[in-house]
């Protein structure tokens, strides 16, 4: 036990002392915030640009053109062209314009011709209305009546005030996706760290001295646990930074303007989440999920001689993790967090470390948490045992990278 503690301590200190760790802790959040801001900026810019880019030819009466301009102020409307409808269509076909609105003088032909970008439904509505007014006028209907039945109808659209519910859903969704991604990222980053550390030990030949002082599984476990603590420290620091950032944001944001009510609601929802449960479940599932996956990473590190040889083996590990995040988004965020699919993947050990923390903000029954954890722990004991078998042979083996078949043989091989 004392030896295991020494190994954990060395691995933890070596990890947290490295420059890459400090960069990961303090620079990564800044990079992520910067990246998110850049995405919002460019998406917003692109949306504005898309609306502006729509170019429409109007071969119709000026009053209809005015009605279109009123509804689509950013659209580029070309109404002074003295060309035929056919010529205008050709300009659309060669992508100079996105569409044409054509009407003949007696309004017996009214057409909208355009590509996918053209808001055809909206244009149809404007032209429908224009035709109705024109038709009613021809029927000698007084203009007050026409206005009443076209513009001043008593129909009112009253939106259901679901803001609070929507914001709660949105906040929980953000927290859930955040937890899922952080879990996946941590497992990959720290699993890789374990793998690299073992490859380094193999290459520097220090492994030979280590295994004559400690048992291989002690070394592997110490390495995995040491890195897990470094991961938890990072999680703790990120949590602290996030908490400070949110407090500062809450303090300065209520005076922003018309959205201030929503912002107050966002913070209200944020502070009502059960963080004791979220954090404790995250830590427990991170530890067990990470142990499950990092034991695979450890056996890969032991089996190969260089990092370039790891790709073939790492890929199958990444797939279930990525699958879990996407399943989580599809079932929990977009669908029902308590659906059968969500419950099923909560119980599968390869996806539960990601899915369960994602479901936690929506409330998960205790029995489900305990069952999921029990299954995860059983699986992790089996994988650690299997991985340690591969590990103890791999660390003493040099040369070509083994095949999957050889790795399976190593599990049953006596040394």
């Amino acid at each position, binding site marked *: 036990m*004392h*030896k295991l503690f*020494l*190994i954990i301590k*060395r691995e933890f200190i*070596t990890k947290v002392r*490295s420059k890459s760790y400090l960069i990961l802790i303090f620079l990564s959040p800044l990079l992520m915030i910067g990246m998110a801001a850049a995405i919002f900026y460019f998406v917003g810019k692109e949306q504005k640009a898309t609306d502006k880019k729509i170019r429409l030819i109007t071969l119709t009466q000026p009053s209809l053109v005015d009605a279109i301009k009123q509804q689509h102020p950013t659209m580029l409307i070309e109404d002074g062209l003295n060309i035929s409808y056919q010529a205008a269509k050709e300009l659309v076909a060669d992508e100079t314009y996105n569409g044409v609105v054509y009407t003949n003088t007696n309004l017996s032909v009214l057409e909208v011709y355009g590509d996918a970008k053209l808001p055809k439904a909206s244009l149809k509505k404007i032209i429908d209305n224009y035709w109705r007014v024109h038709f009613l006028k021809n029927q000698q209907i007084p203009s007050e009546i026409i206005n009443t039945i076209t513009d001043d109808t008593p129909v009112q659209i009253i939106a259901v005030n679901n803001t609070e519910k929507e914001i709660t859903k949105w906040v929980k969704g953000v927290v859930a996706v955040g937890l899922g991604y952080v879990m996946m990222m941590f497992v990959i980053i720290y699993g890789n760290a374990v793998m690299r550390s073992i490859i380094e*030990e193999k290459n*520097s*030949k*220090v*492994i*030979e*001295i*280590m*295994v*004559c*002082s*400690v048992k291989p599984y002690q070394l592997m476990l110490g390495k995995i646990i040491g890195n897990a603590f470094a991961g938890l420290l990072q999680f703790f620091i990120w949590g602290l930074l996030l908490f400070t950032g949110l407090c500062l944001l809450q303090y300065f944001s209520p005076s922003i303007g018309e959205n201030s009510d929503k912002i107050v609601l966002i913070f209200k929802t944020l502070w009502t989440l059960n963080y004791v449960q979220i954090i404790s479940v995250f830590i427990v599932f991170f530890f067990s999920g990470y142990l499950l996956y990092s034991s695979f990473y450890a056996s890969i590190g032991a089996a190969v001689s260089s990092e370039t040889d790891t790709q073939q083996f790492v890929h199958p590990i990444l797939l279930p993790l990525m699958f879990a995040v996407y399943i989580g988004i599809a079932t929990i965020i977009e669908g029902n967090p308590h659906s059968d699919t969500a419950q099923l993947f909560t119980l599968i050990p390869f996806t539960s470390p990601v899915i369960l923390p994602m479901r936690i903000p929506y409330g998960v029954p205790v029995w489900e948490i305990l069952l999921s954890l029990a299954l995860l722990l059983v699986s992790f004991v089996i994988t650690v045992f299997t991985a340690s078998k591969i590990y103890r042979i791999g660390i*003493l083996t040099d040369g070509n990278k083994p095949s999957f078949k050889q790795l399976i043989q190593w599990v049953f091989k*006596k*040394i």
Partner: protein
Amino acid sequence: MATSILNIENLFKKYGDKIALNHINIHIKRGSIYGLIGQNGAGKTTLIRILNKIIEADGGSIAFKGQKMRLKDIASIGYLPEERGLYKNMTIEEQALYFGQLKGMSKANAQKALAYWLERFDIVSWKNKKIEDLSKGMAQKVQFIITVLHHPELLILDEPFSGFDPVNANLIANEIKTLASKGTTVIFSSHRMESVAEMCDSLCLIHQGSILLNGSIQEIQKEHAQEVYEVHLVDYKIEALEHFLDNQEYHITVVAKTSHQVHLEVIPSSTTAETLQTAIAGIGTLKLYRQYTPNLQEIFIKTIENA
């Protein structure tokens, strides 16, 4: 064997179909320097790994200090592998304390032992240097210190002089001898015969998992020296020489031959040395007659060739 620290009996190990150690027996006296000689792949590393409990034997037994060897006995072994390795990003002190404690030392004792060895090698100022900042030779010295830090009763050194310049190799050789004189038993694995001959009291030659030679260096040399005679004759009679060369009682190798002198290497198969002297008396003028003492390298090469 009361004075033996290590008794290896009938040790057997195979990897798949390949036999790595074929029922070997080795007895090593306490405080001796024991040479383990063999080519690459002979089975030396397998034996060392079994002694360190890194791998398990398929058969046989190992007794350490008269008792069946247990896992906790590993703490009494210091192992310097041929391929040296330390943690590059740790300082010498951190490294020594880490390995010392893994071998069961207290932190204070490891610190004390480190101070002793740094002083002994006159490298106290290196204490806080990282391994990545040291030259290969400097790192080798640190590796040696880490191997002996926990006062092991049995020291296993695999090619201990590789990577050292002659001055430092001599320094390390003296330290090994000093440790042996204080009671530490040393297993010295190497394929460099001259260093083995100089350092070891006794040795064994492993070839393809089997022991071909075993015993003290004097015994081995004496055993091989009895067989071979160097004979140098001048003005020899051709017929008498040819008659002697045909003599089935001797295994004769013509080392050099000119028209008036011949240099022979003679191994009597059944007759004695006196009979040989009589047999060569009439061939020509005897310029040189001596019992040939081959050096260890020649003995090993010949033994392996005949195996």
